[in-house]
């Protein structure tokens, strides 16, 4: 990603490169940090970077939704989960299991395969970013073409809400 940074000087490319590098470092932090709260904060950086990429891709509504739902709600849920499951007596640190090397090999293999296939398939395919996507276009698409999916998602959210309450309730 950063290799192509020097080749073109459009401000969008520069912004993409900086945000992408920050996101990659923060993502590595999420999976390697020894402190679980720090891992959650690194996840915040990744999610904020994703929101910034959405805005660079001119999907502004999605960027706002990303900030509201992920950084606003999901991270708070994670922090609550960390707070409620931390064992006060146990020593912190050992959050990795013993298959780290194997996991690294597997993910490197998959990344290599994906990178080869994607660059092979989409070489020279340019994004032509014109006008930002209108939120009304997304609304039209949701409530016209994908209204069934929307209803299914709303039922799923309700079921997940009830299920989470039933699971976590102390009785």
């Amino acid at each position, binding site marked *: *990603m950063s290799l*192509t940074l020097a080749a073109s000087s459009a401000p*969008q*490319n520069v912004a*993409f490169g900086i945000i992408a590098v920050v996101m*990659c470092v923060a*993502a590595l932090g*999420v*999976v390697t940090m020894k402190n*679980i709260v720090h*891992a959650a904060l690194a*996840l915040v950086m990744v*999610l904020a970077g*994703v929101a910034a*990429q*959405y805005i660079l*891709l001119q*999907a502004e*509504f*999605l960027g706002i939704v*990303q900030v509201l739902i*992920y950084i606003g709600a*999901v991270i708070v*849920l*994670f922090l*609550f*989960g*960390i707070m*409620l*499951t931390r*064992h006060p007596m*146990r020593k912190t640190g050992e*959050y990795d*299991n013993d298959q780290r090397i*194997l*996991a*690294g090999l*597997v*993910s490197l293999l998959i*990344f290599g395969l*994906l*990178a080869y296939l*994607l*660059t092979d398939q*989409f070489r020279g*395919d340019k*994004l032509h970013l*014109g006008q930002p996507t209108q939120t009304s276009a*997304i609304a039209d698409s*949701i409530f016209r073409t*994908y209204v069934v999916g929307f209803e299914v*998602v709303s039922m*799923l959210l309700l079921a*997940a*809400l009830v*299920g*989470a*309450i039933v*699971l*976590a309730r102390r009785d």
Partner: protein
Amino acid sequence: MPITEYLLLSAFLFCTGIYGVLARRNGVLVLMSIELMLNAVNINLVAFSARLNDAAGQVFALFVIAIAAAEVGVGLAIVLLIYRNRVGVNLDEIDLMKG
């Protein structure tokens, strides 16, 4: 700008998530890694939405965000339940169903 940059970024995030799911043993950290993978998919969807000039990709990204929120809620409830019934949330100690 080339679409491959976005695709490679997304592939990197996805593979980092795979590593996290495989190498972490804390339940909350595994859920965080799953979030990384879901976000990688969302970047792909939005990039192709911009490439094809079609809002459908963004609609699917919204669906993925909603389902990820539901997944985190239920997942953390399950982790809490495991924590309460057993000693910790280390996933390699949860082997009741191992034969």
